[in-house]
C-alpha cells in the first residue's frame, strides 16, 4: 500500500505547473508550492463547484488507521475548460493523488495529478496548454530560421 504521506522530492515540473492560472486567490498562504506529496485512497465525494472543486477521500495508512483527506482543485469555471464534469471523479474510485501539501501538513493538498486504478491520469488543464505551446515552439524552430 502506498504510504499516505510519501513525500516525493523535487517534482519541480509539477510544482511549477501554474497555480496562478486557476484561482480566485493565490495558493501560497495555504499550500507549500515547494513540496509535493502523494496519497492513495478511495474517493468518497467529488464536489464540482466554484471557486474550487473539492474531492474528499478516505486514506488508510500502513497501520490500518483511516484518515479523511481533502483535495482542492481549480474551480468548475476552470476545469470546465478542459472537459471536466461532476462525473469526472466518482465515489468509490481508488485513486493516487499527487499535490502540494499545506504548510501545516494537515490532511489536505492541492491537486497536481491523479492516477486512477486503471492507470489513466488526470492532470491540471494548464499542463495540456503547456504541451501545446511546446509543440508550437518545436514547429517554429523547424520551420523558421532565426
Amino acid at each position, binding site marked *: 500500500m502506498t504510504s499516505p504521506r510519501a513525500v516525493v522530492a523535487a517534482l519541480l*515540473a509539477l510544482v*511549477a*505547473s*501554474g*497555480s*496562478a*492560472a*486557476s*484561482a*480566485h*486567490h*493565490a*495558493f*501560497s*498562504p*495555504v499550500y*507549500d*508550492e515547494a513540496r509535493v506529496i502523494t496519497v492513495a485512497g478511495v474517493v468518497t465525494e467529488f*464536489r464540482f*463547484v*466554484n*471557486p*474550487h472543486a473539492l474531492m474528499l477521500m478516505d486514506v488508510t495508512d500502513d497501520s490500518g488507521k483511516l484518515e479523511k483527506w481533502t483535495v482542492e482543485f481549480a*474551480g*468548475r*469555471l*476552470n476545469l*470546465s*475548460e478542459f472537459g471536466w464534469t461532476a462525473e469526472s471523479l466518482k465515489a468509490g474510485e481508488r485513486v493516487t493523488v499527487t499535490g502540494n501539501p*499545506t*504548510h*501545516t501538513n*494537515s490532511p489536505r493538498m492541492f491537486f497536481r495529478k491523479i492516477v486512477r486504478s486503471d492507470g489513466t491520469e488526470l492532470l491540471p488543464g494548464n499542463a495540456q*496548454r*503547456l504541451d*501545446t*505551446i*511546446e509543440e*508550437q*515552439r518545436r514547429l517554429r*524552430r523547424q520551420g523558421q530560421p*532565426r
Partner: protein
Amino acid sequence: MIPKRSARRRRVLLGLVLAACLPGLARGQSPASRLEGMWSDPPTTPEGLFCFFACTDAGIARLNALLDDPANDARPFQQLQAEAKRYEREYLRDQLTPAARKRYPFDPADDPGFLRCEPWGMVRQIFAPHQLEIRQPAPDRLTLRYGEWDGLRTVHLDGRAPTPPKPTAMGHSVGRWEGATLVVETSGIAPNIIMLPDLQAMGEHSAEMRVVERYTRSADGHALHLTATLSDPRTFRAPQVLRKIWRWAPEQQIAPYDACEVPTEFKKGARP
C-alpha cells in the same frame, strides 16, 4: 478538378457556417453584436498564456525576446514565462508611487477575496480569468458577466454622467462605440486590490482610480482583446496600460459561484 459552380457553392456554405459559428461577423450588424456572447480562457499561444490575467507591453516584449533567442530553445516555456513575469513585476514596481511601492507586492494572505470570500472589485474583475459573457439587454446598456465570482457589471450607453455619488466595488461605467471598438470609462471605484499583473503580485488602488477599457474583436473573430488604461495618481506615477485576451467560447457557461470557503489554516508572508 472541382467544377466552378460546386466550388462557389462550397464557399457560400462555408460562409454560412462561419457566420453561424461566429455571431456578429456578418455585415450590417451592430457593433455590440460583434462582442456579444461568451468568451473564456485565452487562445493557447505564448501571448495568450502570458496575458491569462493581465500583462503589459513591456512584459510581452520581454517574453518574445526570450522566445526568439536560440539560446533558450531547450528551456521550457514555463521557465521563460516566469522570467518574463519577474521582469514585468519589476517594471510595474517602477511605475508605482513611493507610497504604493511600499505595499507592493501585497501579502496574498491579506487578500479579502481569500480571507473573507469578498468578491473582487472592478479593477481586478476585468482581468479575471475564465468566462466573460457580454450581452446587450437594452439599447442603452451592456452587461459584462464574469465566471469569476459571477460578477456583473453594467455599462451605460446613454451618455449619463460618469461619476456616481458614492464609490462602489464595480464603479460607474459609461460606454461608447468607436467603430467596432467598445470604449468603457469607469470611475467611482471603491479602493480595492489590483493585480500587477496577477495574483502573485497584487497592489492596492485608491478611490481616484479611473479606467478606460477598449474591447476589440480580432479580425478572425476568435479572440477578444482588452486594452485598459489605468489612471490613479495615488498608485501610479503615470497612467498604465494593461492588456488581456479571451477566446470565443460559445460552449462555455457561467456556473453558480456559491461554495467559497473561508480559510481555516494559512500562513502569512508565504510568497509563491
